[in-house]
């Protein structure tokens, strides 16, 4: 089967030629030199301080769920920044390219981004924010906290956990690479069909998008399997189903979505790659193809994906509100039920993403009704948080401030979502920036949930709190920025501004476009305060207590701060929902174990990071159709997996004496401390 490619192809370099490097574009060139400088400084610093070995042994080859979680979050934050810069460019382009008389620079007729670049920027923004920022940050939080909350030593499959991380990193790296080598997709984060098919998108952009998502979606599926197995099988003795903290419950429900939904995306993208690489006709218009099939498959994944992202923040709020209200969570059981109701209904609403595609009124009415049902469990959650605050003693630390902001965002996002779920309204604002403002409210719930969680659990991981003063400045500038960007965006949507416009024809919208740009400036300010918060916290490092906030209720606050790499010296016995609160009520919170027993720990392995690098090479080879590179990488991955199965390393034993030593000097066992080499149990036969 032959596909018609435009441009040259050679066996050695595939489609890659020198013209594919956009060195003539000053924005990309500047970005490249900026990134290269930062990269070189980082490498130089690592070599100068002789940290390369530490980085390799303690981070790149680790299977520790906390370190993997931290790396997930770092990747997510880097990508969040990249996605924000994309957003900044889009907003600046729209405010500049407003009306026929607006001037143009850098080769653009209006503004500074010609459609060729703008379309890549908006596609990258969506792909990055959802798949490579929100998803890794939430996966990272789940990784760090779930085992601690249920009293487990690690995730059920530590090795698979590292593979998940490095597959996600490989996808993120491919997206970053598309900036400097070739181009990114111009067919939106959803892959607009048939626009993403070869006749309309002959370049490598769609291939970058497709393989980057494919790799990370594989990682997310593995991570979901891991979380499910961990929550189901690894709970501490005494923790029955209804003693599981809500954050761990939502991770279970969200991982069930992840495990069942992400394969649908994988299949949709695989069929698209068959179209683009083998010349099949799954989603083409001609030869019996049907692009509506892709749109259905995409949203059958895409809508559950939204709940996949939003459920963890619901769990985060459910942990933070009780801690800072000094009260148990109101309606624990209904909170759990509501989480699973949301996860379940999420499967039956996907067609509300295309009410305008010509479905009949019965079908549109059905999907409208199903969508509205989501409002019920979501409303229950809001009421439960509110009644947790009722007759509480609320302290407004930064995690609590973020939580309250998240509940407000959820109310406005939910309200506008209900509007959009009615086809009679949807026909007027579908594909307008009203929709954009609505789902940004929702993903901002994810963002503020992430910031709340990072501030809340930071001391548990690193041993000191984040600076509250700069944290509050970060909070207020971020919230103000969100209001100033998205309230005008709602108004522009009602005025009829379409999404994805490189050039805005209506000059009456200028004041609102300028307002959005001011909001972006506030966001820039919030990034400054975020960095300052990190800097001040790292500089001061005020040690935090085991129960860092003094009012913690769950298991993770029982072990040491910073948490030792083995989590709990002795697996705790669970007596109640909110175990720590129960122990405090019974005066048992300071009871420490006197004797220790040795712990069987997993050894580090270089295979996951190797698989990640090889997957990236395979992706790169497929994108540029460098068949030898893709083939060898795939072969090497298979060889690495087979070779590992012959590895007799069965982990190592952490002796009781070592644990006793760590328990008195906890900083020696923290996630950033370097561990001595411990001999593996080499003679145990794998079974």
């Amino acid at each position, binding site marked *: 089967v032959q596909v018609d490619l435009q441009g040259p192809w050679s066996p050695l370099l595939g489609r890659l030629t020198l013209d594919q490097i956009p060195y003539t574009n000053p924005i990309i060139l500047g970005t490249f030199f900026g990134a290269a400088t930062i990269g070189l400084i980082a490498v130089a610093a690592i070599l100068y301080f002789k940290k390369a070995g530490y980085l390799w042994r303690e981070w790149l080859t680790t299977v520790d769920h906390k370190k993997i979680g931290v790396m997930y979050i770092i990747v997510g934050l880097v990508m969040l920044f990249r996605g924000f810069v994309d957003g900044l460019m889009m907003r600046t382009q729209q405010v500049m390219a407003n009306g026929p008389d607006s001037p143009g620079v850098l080769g653009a007729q209006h503004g500074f981004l010609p459609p060729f670049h703008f379309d890549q920027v908006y596609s990258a923004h969506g792909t990055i924010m959802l798949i490579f920022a929100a998803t890794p940050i939430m996966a990272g939080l789940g990784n760090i906290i779930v085992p601690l909350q249920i009293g487990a030593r690690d995730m059920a499959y530590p090795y698979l956990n590292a593979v998940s991380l490095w597959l996600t990193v490989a996808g993120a790296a491919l997206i970053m690479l598309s900036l400097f080598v070739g181009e990114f997709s111009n067919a939106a984060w959803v892959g607009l069909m048939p626009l993403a098919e070869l006749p309309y998108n002959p370049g490598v952009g769609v291939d970058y998008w497709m393989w980057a998502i494919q790799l990370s979606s594989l990682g997310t599926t593995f991570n979901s399997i891991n979380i499910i197995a961990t929550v189901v099988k690894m709970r501490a003795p005494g923790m029955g189903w209804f003693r599981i903290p809500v954050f761990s419950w939502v991770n279970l429900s969200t991982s069930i979505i992840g495990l069942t939904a992400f394969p649908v995306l994988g299949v949709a993208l695989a069929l698209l790659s068959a179209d683009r690489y083998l010349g099949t006709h799954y989603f083409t218009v001609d030869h019996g193809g049907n692009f509506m099939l892709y749109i259905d498959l995409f949203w059958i994944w895409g809508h559950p994906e939204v709940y996949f992202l939003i459920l963890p923040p619901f769990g985060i709020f459910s942990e933070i509100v009780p801690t800072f209200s000094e009260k148990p969570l109101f309606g624990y059981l209904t909170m759990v039920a509501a989480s699973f109701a949301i996860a379940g209904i999420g499967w039956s609403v996907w067609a509300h993403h295309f009410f*305008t595609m010509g479905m009949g009124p019965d079908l549109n009415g059905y999907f409208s009704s199903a969508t509205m049902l989501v409002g019920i469990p979501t409303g229950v959650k809001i009421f439960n948080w509110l009644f947790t605050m009722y007759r509480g003693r609320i302290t407004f630390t930064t995690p609590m401030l973020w939580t309250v902001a998240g509940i407000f965002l959820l109310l406005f996002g939910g309200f506008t979502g209900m509007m959009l779920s009615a086809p009679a309204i949807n026909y007027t604002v579908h594909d307008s920036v009203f929709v954009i403002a609505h789902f940004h409210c929702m993903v901002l719930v994810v963002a503020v949930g992430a910031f709340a969680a990072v501030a809340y659990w930071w001391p548990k991981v690193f041993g000191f709190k984040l600076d509250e003063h700069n944290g509050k400045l970060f909070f207020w500038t971020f919230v103000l920025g969100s209001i100033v960007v998205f309230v005008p965006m709602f108004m522009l949507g009602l005025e009829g501004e379409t999404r994805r416009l490189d050039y805005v024809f209506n000059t009456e919208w200028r004041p609102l476009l300028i307002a959005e740009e001011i909001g972006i400036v506030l966001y820039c300010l919030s990034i400054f305060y975020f960095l300052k918060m990190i800097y001040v916290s790292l500089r001061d490092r005020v040690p935090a207590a085991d129960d860092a906030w003094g009012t913690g209720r769950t298991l993770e606050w029982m072990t040491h701060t910073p948490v030792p790499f083995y989590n709990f010296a002795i697996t705790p016995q669970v007596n109640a929902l909110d175990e720590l609160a129960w122990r405090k009520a019974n005066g048992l919170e300071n009871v420490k174990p006197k004797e220790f027993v040795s712990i069987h720990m997993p050894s580090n392995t270089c295979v996951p990071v190797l698989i990640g690098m090889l997957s990236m090479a395979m992706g790169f080879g497929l994108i540029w159709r460098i068949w030898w590179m893709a083939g060898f990488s795939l072969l090497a991955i298979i060889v690495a997996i087979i070779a590992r199965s012959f590895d007799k390393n069965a982990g190592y034993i952490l002796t009781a004496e070592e644990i006793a030593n760590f328990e008195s000097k906890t900083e020696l066992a923290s996630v950033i401390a370097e561990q001595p080499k411990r001999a593996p149990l080499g003679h145990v036969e794998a079974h």
Partner: protein
Amino acid sequence: MSANIFQPVGIVAKAEYHYTVLLVGVMMLIILPTLALMILFPLRYRKSRNAAYAPNWSHSTIIEILAWGVPFAVTAVLIYYSFTGVYAVNPYNPGVLAKSPGAAEPPINVDVITTDWQWFFVYPDQHIATIDDLVVPAGRRVQLRLTSTSVMNGFYIPRVAPMIDAMPGMRTEDAFEVDEPGTFEGFSTDFSGAGFSWMQFSTRVVAQSDFDAWVKAVQSNPNALSYAKFTQLAHPTVNVGAKPSYFSVPEQGLFEHVVSDALAGVVYPVPDSLTKSVSSNEGKAESTPATASP
């Protein structure tokens, strides 16, 4: 020119606005009290205020029933109105047009064909066609059939007609009626590639007599829209400022032809070079509107 949905003119658009207000009103029954609690509780139960404190209170059957029951009741009402609304403004056959002044007369049929990145409006009964200019008589129901030569587009005239997608190889329908003359902005809502931002068209609603005169004038235009001519014009073109073109004697069955073309694999590919240089092509497209690129 405002495209505000709060200033609806068409009968269907007015119904959409009506349902917007109605549904938002019902939602406010639950949104506003919730908002009040969200402001009240965090302020009232701050630690520094020493308000009542119930350290172990975490269950109340009454509140639980209300927390599920009130959203359930409001959602039930919303679902009811959503269903009546979807029939009232169903783009294929809007319920509200059944009793409209135009219902007595046969509708004006217009076939809408989107290309990259222009709008063809073909009037099969009047034997005329236009690019980027939709002219219809006031007080008559306008019945549209839509398709696309290339990728998906969204057809939308905010103050007049509900949004509907135009898709290659398929036919969708839309209907509207405006009872007083006016000029309205229409545009594509579904991203279709590099020229998407410039994909606007004007909708002119005129008195019946003016419409008849306009039809006559266009009919006498020597510029005939043969199938060969259409395929030439359907190549990717950025029509800056949506400059209209007019044609007489469009090919019989052009709409069906375009649909079967798409199913048979006729594509108007967007060359990589055009995508990259669409900004520099812009000026060129402006000087020669509605001509095909090579």
